[in-house]
């Protein structure tokens, strides 16, 4: 009998709490976008940190609910194009190349600068990397040059990759990756002094090809190659430095005399959004001081805001610092996209020999 009584009390208490919760949800919070939903298309990496730094604080501030659609660039863009006539994405986060493709496919639209109050605080190059205000760069990354300091002399140039003494221990990003085309441009600059005559870059790649252990298509592949001591020298994406350093090997970073290619993760407004103001608010949120600082401190995204400062031990795992940023080159995504098919065929013909 006692047991029955306890169970009844527990049941009543549970229903009461459910009812209370239901009631509290219906109470007005007075927040500006209460009851609205914002759909954000983004990568699925570090979702717990992104929830903590970006999504939950935004929902709490504006009262809306954020629905996240995750996946890699190609998958998400394909979905957006397939749903072009019935769009659901309000904000899309893509790499530069895919933002350009999204612009060409008509699935994103220009942002409203009057709503982006944080725009003045970010790097000039990040304000409109695609052109026509089709997106803002909210996170910076760069292609660095890593080398094994116990196996190689100090690396000072992209030309060093072709040094015969490193044959068989070099890897480079494939042409289909974000930095693949940028690598051809850097070879061009190293051997001609500028980026114009890419024919020279391709010739140098052909010379380099037999010396490569392989070309990698993911940063995780490069990490494996480094950990297995297959690779002593390679270009790497800045966000992968933490993993490279954690191999425990004698690894060093070089800033070659020709500079480094940089790129942005770009946030854009979905073309068919029904929440355009809220979408712009979200993009503005991404470049707010607190979000940029917290993302940098958690080593997820490198800041594009010039006023964000992070400690030295964190800075070395990010695309951060005046010396590095002043050595970065940002390439025209339209030109990269126009060359893509031809360059992929050319790359394949070199590596399929």
């Amino acid at each position, binding site marked *: 009998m006692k047991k029955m009584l306890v169970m009844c009390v527990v049941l009543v208490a549970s229903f009461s709490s459910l009812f209370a919760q239901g009631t509290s949800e219906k109470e007005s919070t007075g927040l500006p976008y209460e009851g609205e939903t914002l759909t954000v298309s983004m990568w699925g990496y570090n979702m717990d940190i992104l929830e903590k730094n970006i999504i939950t604080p935004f929902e709490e501030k504006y009262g809306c609910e954020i629905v996240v659609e995750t996946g890699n660039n190609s998958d998400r863009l394909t979905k957006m194009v397939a749903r072009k006539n019935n769009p659901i994405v309000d904000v899309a986060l893509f790499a530069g190349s895919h933002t350009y*493709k999204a612009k060409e496919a008509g699935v994103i639209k220009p942002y409203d600068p009057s709503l982006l109050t944080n725009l003045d605080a970010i790097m000039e190059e990040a304000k409109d990397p695609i052109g026509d205000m089709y997106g803002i760069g909210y996170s910076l990354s760069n292609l660095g040059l890593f080398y094994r300091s116990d196996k190689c002399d100090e690396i000072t140039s992209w030309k060093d990759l072709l040094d015969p003494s490193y044959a068989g221990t070099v890897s480079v990003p494939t042409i289909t990756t974000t930095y693949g085309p940028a690598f051809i441009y850097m070879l061009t600059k190293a051997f001609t002094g500028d980026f114009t005559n890419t024919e020279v870059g391709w010739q140098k790649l052909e010379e380099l090809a037999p010396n490569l252990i*392989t070309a990698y298509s993911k940063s995780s592949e490069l990490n494996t190659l480094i950990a297995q001591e297959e690779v002593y020298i390679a270009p790497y994406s800045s966000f992968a430095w933490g993993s490279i350093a954690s191999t425990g090997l004698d690894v060093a970073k070089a800033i070659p005399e020709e500079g480094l290619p940089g790129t942005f993760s770009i946030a854009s407004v979905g073309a068919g959004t029904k929440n355009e103001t809220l979408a712009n608010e979200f993009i503005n949120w991404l470049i707010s001081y607190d979000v940029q600082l917290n993302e940098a401190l958690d080593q997820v995204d490198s800041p594009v805001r010039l006023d964000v400062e992070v400690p030295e031990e964190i800075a070395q795992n990010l695309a951060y610092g005046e010396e590095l940023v002043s050595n970065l080159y940002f390439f025209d995504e339209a030109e990269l996209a126009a060359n893509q098919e031809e360059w*992929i065929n050319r790359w394949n013909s070199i*590596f399929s020999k």
Partner: protein
Amino acid sequence: MNPLKSKKTMLFLVGPGFIFLLIFFFLPLMYVLLESFQGENGQLTLVRYYDVLKNAQFKLVFVRTLKMALVVTPIAVIIGYPCAYFISKLKGKKKSILTTLVILPLMTSPVARTYAWIVILGKYGIVNAFLTSLHIIPEPTRLLYTEGAIIVGLLQLFMPILILTVSSSLENVSSEVEEAALSLGSNRLGVFFRVVVPLSFEGLIMGITLVFTGCFTAYVTPAILGGANVLTLSTLMREQALVLMNWEAATVIAVIMIITTLVLYNGIRAFKPRNM
């Protein structure tokens, strides 16, 4: 037996599988097939095939993929068939232990199995360490990111399938048939090639088809063990679909892969012994 009842039972047994395959396999396959013959305005055309087939890169990759599948499949048969024969002749505990050993690799993720080869075939991996310690080679040689690495990886991946398919087929070959052939004057080798192999031909065809198709369409193993140096049809198809967003070319490559495996399947059936 009541034929109506039997028909109903057959429908009941086959129906769910048939409906599943119809919805999730045949219809999408037909869609892919039709799509590959459609032009931009929906008209029937072969232009997509022409565009893909005239590409020198495609020809090179097609020949390479075909070559690798044609190398792996006979090796799998040469190693796997005797193994399957041996297992089929065993009884009791020994048989279940050996069958489990064959199945065991299939229970591991293909990605994990393929990554294991990176450790084995790496510069400081087991193979190079063994060869250098015996002074067979003066210094570690490149084994990874070669066609050889892919062939080894595919062989490990698909040989268990051939062994399982053939051994279940061999179990239907009665040992009395073999004894009868021996008593009629044939030697052991003759019995094997003229009695056992023809009687297990259906299983062998199935095994060969599964291994060849698996090798010809594999993605993970060539992508990991071949890297950028060894492009195959699957990696090329991914590149067309997900990098260039050229779904039309990817569709054509998919259809060509299907046609190739169908041609092989029917080609092998032509070698089927008469009266079997």
